Every structure is written in C-alpha cells, then in structure tokens.
C-alpha cells in the first residue's frame, strides 16, 4: 500500500508540474501548484509509513510499546507545516492573480511580459 500511495504522490507531482508548465490560465497554474503541493505531501507521509502500524497517538496504545506499534511521526509533523505553508502560498498567488487580472483584464499568462531582457 505504501508503494501505491507514494507512486500516486509522485504522479500528482507530475500532473501538477504539467499544469504549471502547460496551462495558459493563471488560475489553472495556481491549481497546478495545489496539486503539486498535495502530491509532495502524499509522498512525505508515505515516507513515514510503517507497514501495519497505527497513528502515533498514545492514548490508544500505552507509552511503553509505542516504539513497536506506531508509524514514524516525524514526516507527519513536517507535512502539517507544509500544508499550512502551501495554503499561504496559494492565497498569495491568488491575490497576485487578482491584481494582475485587475491590471490587464486577462488571466492569460502570455499577457504579462512587460519585463524582459
């Protein structure tokens, strides 16, 4: 199962990247990013997965045999942070998109080339 999910995660990353690199609509690109983020998160959590073990919460199992019965808590802790960061970044991008649209009345990425060379 770990394999399946980690592969799913990687595929999500690729789909997200595809969206970022190929879509012309800014909103789509940002959605690509959320997919990208989700994929990364799935991969990270899969890394901490240990076959047949439970969540690292000790009110279910006693503290003594925690070591034998829980999955790795560290990636999960990291993913928590990552999800929140992803939200912040997405929100920021959306605000940018709003502003850019406000400016040019378009979401086409090819319209924002005022800066070059």
């Amino acid at each position, binding site marked *: 199962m770990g394999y399946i999910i980690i592969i799913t995660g990687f595929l999500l*990353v690729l789909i997200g*990247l595809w969206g*970022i*690199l190929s879509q*012309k609509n*800014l909103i789509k*690109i940002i959605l690509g*990013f959320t997919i*990208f*983020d989700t994929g*990364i998160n799935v*991969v*990270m959590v899969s*890394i901490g997965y240990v076959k047949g073990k439970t969540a690292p919460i000790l009110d279910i199992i006693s503290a003594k045999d925690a070591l034998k019965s829980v999955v790795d808590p*560290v*990636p999960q802790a*990291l993913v928590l*942070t*990552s999800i929140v*960061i992803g939200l*912040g*970044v997405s929100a*920021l*991008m959306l605000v*940018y*998109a709003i*502003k*850019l649209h406000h*400016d040019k009345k378009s979401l086409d*990425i*090819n319209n*924002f*080339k*005022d*800066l*070059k*060379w």
Partner: protein
Amino acid sequence: MVTPIYIVAVILGLAFLLGILKSSMTRLGSILMIGGLVFITFVSGQWLYEFLVNHRATDIIYTAGFLPPYAINLQMGLNEAILTTMINIVGLLGGIYLLDSLKKTGINSMAIFIVFVMSLNVIVMTRDIFNLFVFLEISSIATGGLILLDNKRKAFQAGMKYIIATGIISNFLLIGIIFSYYFASSLNIDGLIAANLMSIKGGAIALFTIYVSIILELKPFPANGWGIDVYTASNPGISALISAGSATAALFVAYKLMPMGGSFWLPYFAIIGAITFIGSNLMGTRQENPNRLLGYSSIGQVGLILMIIGLSPYLGKDTLLIGFSILISHYAAKAGLFWLSGIIKSKNIQGWSALRKHPYLLFLFGTFIFALIGFPPFPSFFGKWNLIMALAAHGQYAWMTAILAGSFTEAIYLFKWLGYSIKLEVPEDITIKFEWNKYLPIYLMGILLYFMGMYLAPFTEGGVYINFLPLAFVFLLFALDFLPVYVKNTLSIAGIIWYMVRLFPLLEHDLMREIFAGIFLGGAVLTLVAGYAKKGKRPGFYPMALLMFSGLVGLIEANTLLEFFFSWELMTAGSYFLIIRGKRSMPHGYSYMLFSIGGAYAILFGLALAYASGLNISLAALGHITQLTTLAYTLLAVGFMTKTASLGLHIWLPGAHGEAESDVSPMVSAILLKAGVFGLMLLFFYMGTGTPGSEKLLYVLGWVGALTALSGNLGAVFQEDAKRLLAYSSIGQLGYILFSITMMTQLGWLAGFTYTINHFMFKAILFLVIGGIVVKLGTHNMYEMGGMIKKMPYSFVAVLISIIVIGGIPPLSGFAGKWLLYNAVIQKGWYFQGVVVFFAGVIAFLYLFKLIHSVFLGQLKDNHRNMKEISAWILIPSYILIIGIMVFSAFPQWVLKPIGNMLTVYFPKSLYWQGTRAFTSLGYWDGTTTMIVVVTAFTLLLGWLVIASKKVKRIGQFNIVYAAERPYRPETTHVSYNIYAGYKKALGFLVTPVVETFWENVSDMVLDFSGWLRRIYSGNMQNYALHVVLFIVVFYLIALGGL
C-alpha cells in the same frame, strides 16, 4: 551576552505587535521597526565582537531544551556572526532608507520587512534542514510581498514570477529533505553530514534535490529570469536587501550544506557558478536599465561566490576569506548602488549623469563600481588576488580564465555606466533631492568598503607590506577638495616632494628604480606646477592625480607581487579618472579602462603563474616561473604592453591622451606610459634570455615594437589634431622602447633607457606647451592655428628643442638613442626590424614638421592677433625639462655610464667609455665633442650672418607672393591641412585602421552574442518555470544520469 534566539523572539513579537497598531500610527510603527532592527544588529554585532576580540568558541543554541538532532538548534560562530551582522546592518540601513515607502504602504509592510530580515538571520544560523526550508519560505514569501511595495504593474508580474519559481524550487527541496530523512534518519545538518548520504544508495538523489534547490535559490544562469525581474521591478531599497541580504544568506546555505555531499558535488557548484558569472555579466553588456543591470551584476557576483564554494578544495583554508572578501564588496557595493538608483530614479543608465551635480555621490558611485570590479583598496581586490593565486598554485588555469573572463565582461558594462555618469550632460528631468535617510545608508556602505579593504589587507600573504600612506594622502586631498586650486596644488607638490625625499634613500643601489622614481615623482612635480595656471577649484582633480602617482610610486616600492599589482590597479584607477576629465574623452576613457583591465588580468594571470611556481610572493618569483613559463611571460608582457600601447593594443591611446586636459596629457603620456615600460623592464630583467621560449617571445615582441613604432609615427603624420598627433607620436616612441629592450643586450637596454628618459622630457614639454596653446586658442585643429611664433616665442623654442630631440638630430640627446640603437641592432643582428625602426624614425620628421609649422609658422590667423604667450606656470616646468635635455645632451656619460654599469650585471658589457667618448665594437660617439663642435660652428656661422647682413628689414605678414589661403574655412585652404596627401597616396594603406576594425568587430560580436543570449528572458513566467525545471533535469542527467 544576548542569545541570538532573541533576534527571532523580539522581531516576531514586534511584528505581531505591529498588527495591533492602528493604520494611522505609522510613526510609532516606524520607531518600533527601527528599534527592532537596531536591537538585532546589536545582538549580532555583539557576537561578532566576542568572536573577533575575545576569540570565543562557537556557540550552539538549543531550542525546546533538547539536544539535536531531536530538536532544532541554531549555531552562532564567527561565520554566522559576520553574516548576520552584515544582514542586519543592511536590514537596518535598508529600513532607514525605506522609511517613507514603508510608511506610505502601512504598518503591515513594516512587519513584513522586519520578519524578512529576521528570517535571513535564521537561515544563516539554523542547523536543521527542515527549519531551513521553513525560513527560506518565510523569506521568499516576504520577498514576494515586499516586491509590491511600490504597487506597480511590473512589480506584480515580477512577484508572480518569483512566487511561481520559488514554489517549484521549494517543493523540490521538500522532496530532498524527506528523502534525506528517509535515508539518513536525521534532519539535522550535522547529522546528515555524519551520515554521509553519498555512501547510501539513493542518497545521492536526495542530495541532488537539496542542492539543486539551493542552487536555484541563488538564481543560476540561465534559470534566473524571475530573479532578474524581481531586481528590476521592486523598489530599489528592496532590491538592495535582496541582493545584499538574501543572496548572502543563500550563499551561506550553500556553504553550510556543502559538506553533506563531499567532494562529488563541488565541481558542479563551480561550473554552475562559472556559467552564471560569465553568462549573467555577458547579458549585462546590452542592458540599459540600471536596476536590471544591477540585477545581472548581482547574479553574476553570486555566481562567482558559488564558484568559490565549489572550488574550495583548491582554496583550502582560504575559502572563507576569499569568499568573504568578494561577498562583502558585492554586499556593500550592490546595496549602495541599488540605493543610489532609488535616489536617481532614472529608467536608463544615461540618466545617472545627474550625479555630476553631486560630487560626493558620484564619488561613492565610483567607489562602488571599482569595488565590484575588484580594484584596490577594496576587499574584492584581495579576494580575487587570493583566489587567482590559490587556483594557480593548484594548476587550475581553466578556472582562472573563467573568473577573469567573467570579471572582464562585468567591467564592460560597469565602466560604460560610470563613464556615462561622469561625462554625459546632466538630464533636466532628473533632480536629486537630499533626504538624509537615503543618503546616510549609501555613505555608510561606501565607508564600509574602504574600511574593510584596509582591514582585510593583512590577511593576504604579503598584504601587511602594503603602504597605505599615499592613499591616506589621497583621502586628505579629497577631504580638502573644497579649497582653491593653488592651495591643493601646493599641498600636492609638497606631499610629493616630501615623499621623494623619503623614498630616494631607500632606493640606493637600485638605479633602475631611481630613474623611474625620478620620472614618476619628478614628472609629477613638474606637471603639477603647470596646474597653477588653472583657476577655480578643479573638483576631483587632485585626489585622482595623486591616486595615480601613489600607484606609480607603489610600483617602484613594490617588493612583492601583491604590492606590485595593487599599485598597478591604483594607478589604472587614478589615470582613468584623470583621462576621463577631458571634454570629449568619454569613449576614450572607456576603451582605456577596458584595455587596462584586460591587461591587468593578463598580468594577474602571469603573476599567479609566477607565484604558483615557487609559492613565493616576492617580486623575485618572476625570475623562476616554472608553470607554463612561456605563457606566463607572454601574458605579463601583453599586460604591460596594454599600458605602453603597443601595436594591436594601442587604439585607446590617441583619444585618451588627445582629449585629456592640458596638464593631464603630459601626466598620462610622459609619465604614465613609463609604468608599462617599467613593468616590461622588470619583466625582462627577471625573465632573462635563458628561460625556455623567451627567445621566441622576445623576437616576436621585437617585431611588435618595431611595427608599433612605424604605425604610431605613420598615424601621427596624418593627424590634423595637435594633441592626437602627439598621442600617436607616443605610440611610436613606446614602440622604440619596446623594440630596444627586447634585444636584451646592454646596448639595447641603454637605448631603451635613453628613449625612456628622452620621451619623458620631450613629451612632457610638448604636451604642456601644445596643451597650453590648445586651451588658449580654443581649438585642437592645427589648420586653425598658425604664426604663433610671433606671439609665443618661448613656447616655440621649447617645442623646437623637443622636436630636435624626437628627430634624433645631433647634438641633442635624441641622437644618443639613435646611435645606441644602431649599434645594438647591428650587434644583435635584427637588421630588418632595425630598418623598420629607422624608417619610423625618419617618418617622425614628417609629423614634427607638420606640428611645429602648422602651429608656429605660416600665417597668423586674424582671430589670434591678440594672443599672448601661454602661462608662465606651463613654461617653467618646460624650461626645467629643457635644461635637463641640454645636460643630458652635453654630458650623456653622466647618465649612460652608471646605467651601463648597472646593466653589466645582467648583460655582457658592450659599451665602453673613454672620457666623454663612448665606443662599442662597431663605432664611437662623443656627445660632448659633438655639442662643442656644433655649438661653435653654429655660433661662428651665426656671427658671420649677423655681420654680413647688417640691415635686415622686418616685413609684414602678407608681404609675400601670397596665394590661395583664406583665413576663414581654414581647413579648405590652410596649406598644412592634409599636407602629406601625396604621402598618403603612397603609403596611406599602412595606416588602414585594421586594429580598430578588429576590436570593433570583437565588441560587436560580444554585443550580438549577448543580445542573442538574452532572448531566453522572454518575460513569460511560464517559460521561467520551464527554465527552472529544465535546469533541474539537465543538472540531474549530467550529474547523476548514470545512476
């Protein structure tokens, strides 16, 4: 001691507190912001002090009360203290600078600002890789916000590009982090280092994703379009912070993470750094927008430092010093430049000429530019020096070439820019208004650069010997720049004389240095005397002149390779400013600088090879070059030849000397060119004839010298501009000198010395007098002059004597050179070169006649009827030099005998003296007798004429068979306009500007290439994202494709 965790706590507390404040309380907000920045600067500064003064051991700060790797820890060592202090200082100064903008945008932006600075601190200090990721995210989100400070359309686009790119990068970083954790069971950097990921299967890929992300954070070429747009579009204050602060932090991250991968990744770092350094600077050459230009430059500099990190195996313990030296220069200069751009607010670099009205700002601008290029006394000079030396010591010539090539491309645009700002007309639409909060940070950065230069000098091998005394004097003069000319002039002369008195006893038994010291310093005094003729204040003249002379005297005093190069660069800088003072000298000053820098890099390369041959920093190392011996000597020679303006490298000279101010021309022609001669002589002394390849090199250089003489003189023949004519003449004369000393015989060298001394004297006279006349008549064109002998008899005599010397006509001292040269050529067997040289010598006669005739003889022009003699202050030094010429002519043995004796140490003796009579195995010559005979005969003949023609009637100007010359539209009818038309028909093909065309094509090619290259920056953010991914994939395939 305040633990650095308070940097985080206090700033976040303040940031959150700022959120409560009402939007109208901007004043309180800004006080809190500045207070917070002052506090963190204090904290980091305090640690820096502890490390530097009390040599405290590195401190580890634990969070959460657990040891790493279980909890996050920070580290505060010397490196961290230095970098956080740097970041906080630029943060504080940037905060002060941005006060207005931040107030306008609101309190939120202040909070973002301080959080940004804080995040950079943590990035530097943290030892946990995921924590690093979090704070990198904070810094990039804060950057994304701060870009919008000006609420401009372009800023939003740039911000979007930035966020997209960093978004991709940080996700890849996360993949790297999680897999590192998976493979190495640690998130702590030290733990990851200990785990040695490279030895774990798959660890290399994890490392790759981490490294590629960190490198991408550094905006490597070409995946950096987003970074450049940020520099371009954001408020200059923010760009300064990004360039000086973020880049610093990100570079340290690369350095910090470097040990994780071991030596496998370092070459890639170096290659990427080199590509970035060169590519980015190359693109800068076509850039006109100042902020974008600075962006290119920033990225280039970061590439250089990344390269240094990558090359650390070769640099050993010096890595940090070198990296820091270059970093601090980049840091201060780039921050200062961005801040300046915020004051000037010009859309293109031409607009920076607004600085002309603000000399102190202009001075700072120059300081920043010179610091970026790596001129002394700035830290980057020492950094580059150490870098090149260390690389040479390990035989890494390709890297050296890359670094120098990149630096050169950087110089191309930076000096174009500096030239514009010094010379272009002040634009009317740009006004610079004084705001203390914008001026102060710039000044402080300028001061920091000088301070750090002095501070870092002793850390370089041989750096303790550098004599900063002359530089201090230069600064004194700069400080006294408000005084009138005569005070500063007197002060300068007094200073130089004092230095001479101090210097000469130290030079005993070293005749060569004494002669050159005499030329440099004596010439300095004489040419400065002419400065009394100037009125007003001459802002900036004296510091720059003295800067050049300090460099020159430093060359004399140098005992080590470092001192020599240090002085060489000082001299170049000073002379650049002197040359560019002329009215129309901008393009010439520019090409002078480019040739000088190219030459300096050739010299640097050669010196590095010398150093590498025996790890010996003393100047004597030039005598024992074992690494690439021939190349080393060739490079050194070429380097020096850029200063002597030898054929192929001469195109800068006519304009530079011709357009310079009237008393600057003699300085740069009579005196400065001798620096190249000094270098060549020194080089040949050490090289000798025994070293492999030296015979061939000398042979080629001999031909170059001969052809230089020919082309220089021919060029002069067809000039209509008096000063350019003299400038071409200098090229020719320096060709003789090069030719003479390449013969490597006693006679050849004697001839070389004779030419050197003579050229010093007569070219000083000529440029002084002709320069004075040009100023007086208000034209350079000889065809607008004429008949001046009546108005300026003293000038005429001075010029007459000078041209007799140039022509080599007995009995004056010019003949000594010719005679020695004849003997030397026949003795050496270089007959054909010799013929070319003698042919050139006769051609000299053509331009000399043209000069003296067009200016002094012929018909007096109507508008010059009320002319008076030129200022006595110009004539006095000229006549002092004439006395010198006379003494040298009548008693050549006084000079040539000691020189000959000195030379016998190096060459077999071939010139003998018998009283006043010199003889060689071929011929003989008696200067004193010749003088006596000629003077006697001349007096007798004159007496006869006086007796025979008692009643000579002076007649009027037009009392001749007058025809065809019209005083108006003078060039159409002035008889000496295009006087050598027939000669041109016959031999004009020899002066086809082949060399000029060649260099033009080279520069066109560079510019075209740069224009083609920068098409990748299409402005489309998606393409930039594509570049980022492309970079990752290509890097992966190259580095790990075989896995």
